[in-house]
């Protein structure tokens, strides 16, 4: 090996001719082991090689199919994000950082009315202004688009009607912003005002002018956009309920509050192709929508995802301003840049739905959850956005982690004349989860049992099915509960602290990647594809469409490739910005990226690995099964001194074909039931979490301060513990905002009163508790190295944990969020009145004396712990479905075993309407049935 390594074999020093000239093709390369940040190859770190393949890394949750790919390089190592340097040095280019030569500035004319018909738009005066280069209105792009193919109800700019204050009416491109603003003022629009609707409850009534019209599928003449119903289980279980909790909640709308406002640059290049720069979570949807709206084939559009200054779901729709920029740029032939004011960010919204949610929980005398009924009316605002999915998620994501005797869900989403709601971190699951977990706390109180023991005795085990047919694989719920109980000192503190100090528990359950790619059949096209290219220099270029929105997806993809190929992270270069070079990918939503893209990346890396091992086989004569990848070397398993360097093997592998190119794809396995809406909430894996929060409540003012949080999240396997902890802490912050102070305030006139970051109260560093992140690793059998999501699920439990802690502190359970001081104070006043207490300081905090059920539940929890461990480690592979706890045989279909057990597709509107608002949406008929009757 001495003397360096040559591309072609030959004698030492044979690369120069006698006349001193270099022999063609005999390039000198740096010595083996070069490349990357460390000069010398390091031996394998057995502490990061799993026990199943001879290392020292413990695997309490069992071995994993990817174990043999582990090289101990970087998986499980706290790793700074690969784009961190660009961000902290200000070199990251966000939407508004894109400056193209000759650019002009676009501004948008917005509706001053909540709901109005556009009679006419006169742009002539604006067009005549010097410096104005283009003006566009709805007429320029009459085609509709929307994030979901089933609900395309948006236009680039209003066609016929404006539907909320801030709705787009026209746009102007001018030489500078001041001129553009002035031109907006010169556009004359005549409106005919229509009766607006702001209250989602009134959206259930027939009106003259529904906000959208769905033709024969329209529900009566209401503003109901989507209604869903699902019912499973045995209702007889709830007839003799030992405890019952029913609460009607009101959740205010909240916004993502990302740092970077929306911004877009559109440019039609010299060949007439559109180059669109936008901070998007899902560039592919924008790509599709642009093609539709602009009437241009997709291959003539290159969507360039800039760095994204925070998304959280708020940058995952294709947006009308992206269309506006493209239309203006096409008209004027110059690049057009549009950057939003913060107020415009709130007007485009897509935040969490304001919701009325009613949850009824029934427990039987054994402390089993005999019934869970959910009724969710969600306020969609003016457009559908992701609402179709949200309508389902509000119910179906409550079907785990507990085993249920029956589950009834009714949901409805209505249009109102407000900015559109959409997807936000914890999409659809957050509000209902809060209601369910607070309900369980209430049930535990009634049964006189510890709420953690109640949960531990009702968990679905690993490798089971939920009542609605979701396939649970790995499940770290029990471990998460155990850890937070221990680390928080729960048993000493719960119901034991003085007035004003409280502790509460909350759990969470979330999808790790939506099982259904919205735009295509999962059997016909993969969810995610990753390309890897390794050229002569040894650097690995990874092409993926995964959109890094700050969550670290680029780092995760780089990490898994680095792990499989045993290369330092700085030899892996992820290219993910352009649709021209990225394979089609669904982008960053539904917490799918780590699971799906890393799986695809591992598959592609395996192909490269195979080429390298085969080359090493050629060179060393040892079969690949006896070779191991170590840091930039491939060595013989039983004698590491025998081996070749990575570059040697690479160049050998490249001999006949040049650069190595590989491709990997991920598609989800077939799963789920056949009932209506069965696909909603399906995921290849689910994350679980349990938080304990401690609060201080000022009983005189109602101010709640969250002081400590112990946050356990089951992410399967922490590929990058630093990023997982960051996500947990960040989720706590975001969830605390929703539970304590954030809300979109719609005033008396229907206007959004706080469209700015002063009055939209995101918690500051002072409000941030000390968070102890606890990572639980349940090693998901299908996840990349066992990993599942960690970006959204960790948000869920903080809301109910804080609500339950407030109850522990002062004995009140307000059922509306956020818990601003006035809300808590009002609840305290109410309690004082009912208990005839004059001074709030004389109130008694709740106390717990265990009832007879406590022991029974603890024993059941103990038994289940043994059951779960065996199932998690696949020592027990017998089937398990929701219902076994209620006495069913999991090997036979449940509906054969009991008459009452049913999957109800055909709802009874009358009984549904009794439950809550959403049920009333079912009292109306769709137009097609009305015509039948007429």
């Amino acid at each position: 090996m001495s003397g360096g390594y040559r591309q072609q074999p030959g004698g030492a020093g044979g690369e120069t001719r006698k006349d001193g000239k270099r022999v063609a093709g005999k390039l000198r390369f740096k010595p083996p082991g070069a490349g990357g940040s460390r000069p010398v190859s390091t031996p394998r770190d057995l502490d990061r090689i799993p026990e199943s393949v001879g290392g020292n890394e413990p695997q309490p949750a069992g071995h994993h199919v990817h174990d043999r790919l582990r090289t101990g390089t970087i998986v499980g190592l706290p790793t700074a994000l690969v784009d961190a340097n660009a961000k902290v040095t200000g070199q990251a280019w966000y939407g508004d950082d894109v400056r193209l030569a000759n650019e002009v500035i676009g501004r948008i004319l917005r509706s001053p009315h909540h709901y109005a018909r556009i009679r006419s738009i006169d742009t002539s005066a604006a067009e005549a202004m010097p410096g104005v280069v283009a003006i566009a209105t709805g007429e320029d792009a009459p085609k509709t688009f929307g994030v979901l193919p089933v609900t395309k109800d948006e236009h680039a700019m209003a066609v016929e009607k404006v539907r909320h204050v801030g709705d787009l009416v026209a746009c102007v491109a001018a030489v500078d912003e001041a001129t553009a603003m002035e031109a907006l003022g010169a556009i004359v629009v005549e409106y005919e005002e229509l009766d607006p609707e702001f209250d989602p409850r009134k959206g259930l009534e027939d009106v003259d002018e529904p906000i959208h019209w769905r033709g024969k599928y329209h529900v009566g003449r209401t503003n109901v956009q989507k209604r869903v119903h699902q019912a499973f289980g045995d209702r007889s279980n709830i007839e003799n309920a030992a405890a019952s909790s029913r609460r009607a909640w009101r959740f205010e709308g909240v916004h993502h509050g990302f740092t970077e406002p929306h911004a877009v640059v559109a440019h039609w290049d010299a060949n007439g192709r559109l180059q669109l720069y936008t901070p998007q979570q899902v560039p592919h949807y924008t790509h599709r929508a642009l093609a539709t709206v602009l009437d241009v084939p997709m291959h003539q559009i290159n969507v360039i995802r800039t760095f994204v200054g925070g998304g959280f779901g708020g940058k995952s729709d294709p947006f009308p301003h992206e269309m506006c920029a493209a239309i203006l740029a096409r008209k004027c032939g110059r690049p057009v840049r549009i950057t939003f004011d913060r107020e415009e960010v709130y007007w485009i919204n897509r935040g969490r739905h304001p919701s009325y949610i009613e949850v009824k929980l029934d427990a039987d005398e054994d402390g089993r959850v005999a019934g869970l009924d959910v009724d969710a009316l969600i306020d969609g605002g003016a457009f559908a956005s992701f609402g179709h999915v949200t309508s389902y998620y509000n119910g179906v994501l409550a079907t785990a982690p507990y085993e249920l005797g029956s589950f009834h869900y009714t949901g409805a989403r209505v249009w109102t004349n407000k900015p559109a709601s959409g997807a936000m971190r914890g999409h659809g699951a957050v509000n209902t989860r809060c209601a369910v977990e607070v309900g369980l706390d209430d049930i535990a109180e009634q049964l006189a049992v510890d709420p953690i023991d109640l949960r531990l005795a009702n968990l679905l085990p690993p490798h089971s099915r939920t009542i609605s047919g979701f396939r649970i694989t790995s499940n770290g719920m029990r471990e998460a509960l155990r850890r937070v109980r221990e680390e928080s000192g729960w048993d000493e503190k719960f119901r034991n602290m003085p007035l004003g100090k409280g502790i509460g528990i909350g759990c969470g359950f979330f999808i790790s990647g939506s099982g259904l790619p919205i735009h295509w059949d999962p059997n016909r096209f993969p969810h995610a594809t990753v390309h890897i290219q390794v050229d002569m220099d040894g650097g690995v270029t990874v092409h993926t469409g995964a959109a890094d929105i700050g969550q670290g997806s680029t780092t995760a993809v780089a990490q898994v490739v680095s792990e499989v190929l045993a290369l330092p992270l700085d030899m892996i270069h992820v290219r993910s910005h352009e649709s021209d070079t990225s394979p089609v990918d669904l982008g960053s939503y539904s917490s799918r990226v780590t699971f799906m893209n890393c799986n695809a990346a591992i598959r592609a890396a395996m192909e490269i690995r195979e080429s390298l091992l085969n080359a090493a086989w050629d060179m060393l004569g040892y079969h690949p099964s006896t070779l191991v990848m170590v840091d930039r070397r491939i060595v013989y398993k039983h004698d590491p001194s025998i081996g070749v360097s990575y570059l040697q093997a690479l160049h050998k592998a490249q001999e006949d074909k040049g650069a190595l190119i590989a491709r990997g794809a991920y598609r989800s396995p077939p799963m789920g039931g056949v009932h209506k809406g069965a696909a909603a909430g399906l995921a290849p894996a689910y994350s679980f979490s349990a938080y304990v929060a401690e609060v201080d409540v000022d009983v005189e003012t109602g101010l709640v301060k969250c002081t400590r949080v112990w946050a356990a999240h089951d992410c399967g396997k922490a590929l990058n513990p630093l990023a997982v902890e960051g996500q947990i802490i960040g989720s706590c912050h975001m969830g605390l905002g929703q539970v304590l102070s954030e809300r979109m305030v719609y005033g008396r006139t229907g206007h959004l009163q706080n469209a700015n970051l002063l009055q939209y109260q995101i918690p500051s560093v002072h409000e941030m508790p000390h968070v102890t992140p606890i990572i639980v690793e349940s090693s998901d059998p299908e996840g990349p190295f066992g990993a599942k999501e960690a970006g959204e699920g960790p948000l869920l439990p903080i809301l109910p944990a804080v609500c339950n802690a407030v109850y522990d502190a002062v004995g009140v359970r307000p059922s509306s969020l956020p818990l601003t001081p006035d809300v808590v104070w009002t609840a305290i006043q109410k309690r004082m009145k009912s208990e005839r207490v004059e001074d709030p300081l004389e109130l008694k905090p709740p106390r717990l004396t265990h009832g007879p059920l406590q022991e029974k539940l603890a024993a059941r929890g103990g038994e289940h712990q043994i059951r779960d461990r065996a199932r998690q480690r696949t020592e027990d592979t017998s089937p398990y479905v929701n219902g076994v706890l209620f006495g069913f045989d999991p090997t036979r279909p449940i509906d054969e075993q009991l008459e009452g057990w049913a999957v109800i597709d055909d709802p009874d509107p009358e009984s549904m309407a009794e439950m809550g608002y959403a049920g009333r949406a079912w009292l109306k008929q769709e137009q097609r049935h009305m015509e039948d009757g007429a």
Partner: protein
Amino acid sequence: MLTPPFILHRPRSVEEACSIAADLASAGRPFDWVAGGTDLLPNYKWHLNPKGDVISLAHVEGADALETNRVGCMARLHDVATSEVVHPLLAAAAAKVASSLIRRSATVGGNLCLDTRCFWYNQSEDWRRSIEWCHKADCGTGADCRVIPNQNTLCVATYQGDMAAAFMALDAEVELVGPEGERRMPLDEFFELDGMKKNVLMPGEFLLCVHLPDDASTRVGAYHKLRVRETWDFPEAGVAASWIPGDATSLRVASTGLESIPGMHTDVVEAHADWTETEGRKRFSKALQKAIKPVNNTALPPRYRRSMVSVLASRALRAITQED
């Protein structure tokens, strides 16, 4: 969002400031004074009554004085909060204003002359156009008040400065200067009950400094502020109290963040000579609550804010009596 263009004047002395003001007035050019700019410039950005000329006090010599009995209008709140010469009550109140970043720019004068706030008013131009404006910034339409409809005589926007209550509790006087000369008055007479007029400043006049009486340093004070977050937020209610320990009649209590101007509650003090006792304190706090009528134009509902007056007052009184 673009700040409307304006001409910035930067006088070096009080005299120069006054003469610029006089010149602009005689030329019929409306103008604003600016100190730290943390209130005025965001408002300009939202096109809230912007003017074509702005006179900065930042370079006026001596305007940033920070002494025990005299605080200049340009004294930065951060300096007040960390000063060892000013009264601890002023330092405590200053430390509760906005955020550390803003306190570095924001000034005592600017805080005392803070524009009143209202969620129908502190909005962008597009937003206000869509409600067809309001009384405070009616853009020539004569628009009605949006908080209390059918009254457009008085603006009920809320005064949310923190410093005023603390200064009033210490019996401060303000020194105003203008083309007509200078004058001095107690701070509680400086404010004028109207969210638009706000104070007695005459055209061309500005607040130069605040004077504290000699015995101010013998006073023990406390300021309690209600807000959702411990930073950034304006007071939803604030109560400052001070007394010369041992002399119950020396009590001074002022409130802020509740009405169009900060309130000085001499009547309530006079009616409750027994405020140092527990029961007296309770009665005092309730009486103070009754004396204040907030309206619905800030983040928290007025009924709640009003109820909090008694809690804040009770805590402030407890705080100042506990020290002796």
